[in-house]
């Protein structure tokens, strides 16, 4: 085994250890963020250098080092980079444990990188827990009543989801006798359809896997934790959860459902329809419950449920044409990238504004267009992208995924998704309206640190670039999705 292929992960792990140790010795806590960022940059640099090559799997075939995994590694590292940049203001208010904050973010990122690479049920579970446990701690980091409650809820519900997932894995293992995804597929292919259909154990296992992963991506009906956790967690962590954690969930769903259950066709169409139905209820419930929200973090929480719904349209498309076309898969990758920039941008703007206002109420954003025109402009751009209007990235992303679904015979689903997009415009634009047309409560400017502004600028650039010249990113997504060709 070539340990060199594991350098991105090792670098991250080492950085996390260094950050914790440094925290004990140095007074200037801002160095912690810089060390963390340099760790991310090193890890990311190696991942970029590895992009495009073909490498053998490592750790007894448990971890694949393919372009799909590398794509997600770059995505997670990029997200973590932006989250840490935007955390510096926020974290500097903590009196203690600043090092732990950064280290936990790095460890969660490590867990997600592993999630994108694993090809074995056992390793999937371990990677998922590494991510989740780091996140439980991060959600409760503020230690006030809301944050603690959120953390506890997340922990308990996450434990239920883990149990469900493990049970599903156990059933799949019991049925096939394998934990390696490709071997599961071989067993399933060897059996006649009648045998498979007559075995509820397998289908139950698949359903439980959907439920377990559905919790991660916040799909309805496994989304109950989202609003409370998003509201209670420190805002940078909310941003991180809404983007990276969701992307990791999708990474693992893509790999598991393709590698293990991608063929035979009737099976893949079955789970494709499950995801299609989950997409419908996620979009609809997410969007409609977002409408009456008065707190912007809760509103974005429901919005992220709806966005998971749009993403699942891509999963459904993948299920309909598994092994024939990679349009659905590459659509999901492109959507996740654009969603990462968009949602991070929105949350970073919220962080900057909330830091000053000490409030997350939408009503308090009134007149922000006059008090902080650039912040308001950035938030407007991100909200426009979330609606899916050009020239922002969200438009291309939705177009890509919806096109995939239409090509694979899911027109009805796309119609529902488009209607949902129209509904969602209402609550996104309401924030825009309040900011630009509302009266200002005070004329005070809203200050923000250079790091935060840089992070926001990068997000806005990403949103615009992906929206205006999407060709390059689409090429990357399609290249990464090439592992989905038999």
């Amino acid at each position, binding site marked *: 085994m070539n340990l060199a292929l594991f350098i991105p992960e090792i670098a991250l792990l080492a950085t996390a250890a260094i950050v914790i140790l440094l925290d004990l010795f140095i007074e200037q806590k801002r160095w912690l963020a810089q060390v963390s960022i340099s760790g991310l940059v090193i890890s990311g640099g190696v991942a970029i250098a590895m992009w495009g090559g073909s490498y053998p799997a490592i750790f007894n075939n448990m971890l694949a080092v393919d372009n799909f995994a590398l794509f997600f590694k770059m995505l997670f590292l990029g997200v973590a980079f932006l989250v840490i940049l935007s955390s510096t203001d926020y974290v500097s208010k903590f009196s203690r444990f600043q090092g732990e904050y950064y280290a936990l973010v790095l460890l969660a990122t490590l867990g997600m990188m592993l999630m994108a690479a694993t090809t074995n049920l056992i390793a999937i579970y371990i990677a998922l827990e590494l991510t989740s446990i780091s996140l439980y701690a991060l959600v409760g980091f503020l230690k006030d009543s809301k944050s603690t409650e959120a953390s506890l*809820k997340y922990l308990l*519900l996450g434990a239920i989801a883990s149990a469900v997932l493990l049970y599903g894995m156990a059933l799949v293992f019991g049925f096939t006798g394998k934990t390696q995804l490709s071997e599961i597929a071989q067993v399933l292919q060897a059996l006649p359809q009648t045998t498979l259909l007559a075995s509820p154990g397998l*289908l139950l296992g698949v359903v439980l896997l959907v439920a377990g992963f559905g919790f991660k991506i916040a799909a309805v*009906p496994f989304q109950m934790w989202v609003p409370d956790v998003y509201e209670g967690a420190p805002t940078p962590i909310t941003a991180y959860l809404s983007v990276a954690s969701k992307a990791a969930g999708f990474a693992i769903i893509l790999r598991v459902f393709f590698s293990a259950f991608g063929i035979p066709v009737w099976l893949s169409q079955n789970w494709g329809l499950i995801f299609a139905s989950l997409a419908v209820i996620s979009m609809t419930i997410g969007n*409609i*419950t977002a409408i009456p929200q008065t707190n912007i973090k809760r509103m974005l929480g429901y919005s992220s449920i709806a966005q998971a719904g749009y993403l699942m349209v891509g999963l459904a498309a993948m299920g309909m044409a598994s092994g024939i076309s990679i349009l659905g898969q590459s659509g999901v990758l492109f959507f996740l990238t654009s969603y990462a920039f968009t949602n991070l941008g929105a949350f970073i703007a919220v962080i900057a504004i909330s830091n000053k206002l000490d409030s997350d109420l939408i009503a308090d954003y009134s007149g922000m267009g006059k008090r902080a025109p650039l912040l308001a402009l950035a938030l407007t751009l991100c909200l426009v992208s979330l609606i899916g209007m050009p020239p922002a990235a969200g438009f291309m992303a939705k177009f890509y995924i919806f096109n995939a679904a239409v090509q694979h015979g899911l027109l009805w689903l796309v119609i529902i998704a488009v209607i949902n997009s129209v509904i969602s415009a209402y609550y996104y634009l309401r924030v825009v309206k309040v900011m630009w047309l509302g009266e200002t409560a005070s004329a005070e400017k809203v200050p923000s640190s250079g790091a935060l502004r840089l992070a926001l600028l990068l997000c806005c650039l990403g949103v615009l670039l992906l929206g205006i010249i999407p060709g390059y990113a689409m090429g990357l997504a399609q290249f990464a999705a090439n592992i989905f060709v038999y």
Partner: protein
Amino acid sequence: MPHQFIWLIFLLPLFSFIIIGFFVRPFVRAESKLAGYITILSIGGSLALSVWALFAVMAAPHHEIPVPDVTWAVIEDGVTIHLGLIMDSLTAVMLIVVTVVSLMVQIYSQGYMQGDPGYHRYYAWMSLFTASMIGLVMADNLLFLFVFWEMVGLCSYLLIGFWFHKPSAADAAKKAFIVTRLGDFGFLAGILLLYLNTGTFDIYELHELAIAGALAGTTLTWAAIGIFAGAVGKSAQFPLHVWLPDAMEGPTPVSALIHAATMVAAGVFLVARMFPLFEHSTEALTTVAIIGGITAIFAASMGLVMNDIKRVLAYSTISQLGYMMLGLGAGGVAIGIWHLFNHAFFKALLFLGAGSVNHATGTFDMRLMGGLRKYMPWTYLTFVIASLSISGIWPLSGFWSKDEILINTFAHQPVLFYLAMITVFMTAFYMFRAVFMTFGGEYRGGEPSAHGHEGHHGQPHESPRVMTIPLMILAALSILSGLWNVTGHFGAFMGHGETHGFFTGLFHPFTQPLPWISLILAGSGILLAYAMYRKSWISPERIGSMFKPLYTLFYRKYWFDELYENIIVRNALLKGLFAGFEQFDNHVVDGAVNGVAGGAIVSGRAIRHAQTGQLQLYGLFIGIGILAIIFVIYFFG
């Protein structure tokens, strides 16, 4: 000039928007007129290029010049998205309309909006609107057309609500946005239906498929009707007309540009752009004609009784748009667009005239005006010219296009023809009712009204030059623009052989019976208005009480607002659907938040109970969700 320059027609106003929005507005002090100059300059540039393009198109074979396009994104499976522009006779004519009216309005606004705190914002949105409108008429595929379609809708929303501190303006903006959205559902459905059946968004390809018969039958009809639904919303046709009168809450130059000459005409343009599809579906084409005919008379009837000058003009616009639809449905592209072309100038002029009057008196209520002829000679003169033109008096432009529509309707839709003839009479009456109430008699001493300029006292006065000169230019166009088709040149240019103009010379109409009838009807409308509102030979009040039920019906706008608001919105949606979701949200979703909030007051023990209860519920939901999926698979899988 190379054809790449055609892109600049669209890009110049867009640059203007970007410069004003991102540089002028944040960094230049509010009193500066820079934003206005940038806008005028860029739209002037677009106009010059549009004129050049018009002549180039006229000289080109098939009246069409190719514009180099840009590949925007490649999605695998051969789906590529091109950014392309069309430059044919229809686009060239629309470009002239958009850029001329926009330029006049921008110049006029220098006077009208002077000193408004939102001056920069106003010009930013106006530039964006002009760019989007140009993009709309130039787009070569339905997807981009739809994008620009929504953009102009957005700009309209922002500009109607420009004085957002007034609740009426904010409500009107919302209403316009929501009502037009209803039509857009149909439009989007039509686009999707076409895409599914043909695999293309390209407008010319769709034309060819429809002409070749590959796209036919019910598919074509439904797609065309879907597209027409979008046009109904945008062009405020019956039954989605309710938003346009309320949209008058915006600044008057906005009404002139967006809600009279250009955006509302986009619906008519859309039908013309997709005309080969309509042509090959009798049902769809008949629908267009019927909706147009009904709208024309229906809106005119409401215009008869309004007291707010801008509302009279708004209903007049709806009615004239109905005429255009009727022209498209009964005659063809050239007939409908010909009226659009002429209407743009005289209707923009009427609105700008109303704005000028408002500038002087501070009100839009005609009952408070009167006698302004003395004080505002230029406004009066130009307003009368426009009124004569819209009433269809020979030889002004309105005559030529309206009578073309009437002649074609007579030939193809006899029933609608009688409605259209009655509308001619109504149009002349309500326009001259407005003229006499506003400019005739003695000044009744206007006062600040709910919208528009405030704080004018004392004697009314003529508006400054910067406002009257655009009026004069538009008046000249209202007189002369009709001459383009006197010998059928416009009809030939629009490229549909059979729709060469009916009239063959300036005096040819007098040899035909139909123009005589329409002129007599229009003349009697003007005379009746003169008798009632200038000389008081006939008392309007007595007429009103004689036809009390009819008067109430018109004045209350057929109770359409009440129908939509009370029955559909309030009862069906608010009390039904949304209330249900609210209950769900209150009891299930917000329970957690309430638990926390209540916990601050009650003891810690109580919180713990509330929270554990909540958590169990959440866990239960996961379980129920899994069971539901299994259930669904078991029974339907």
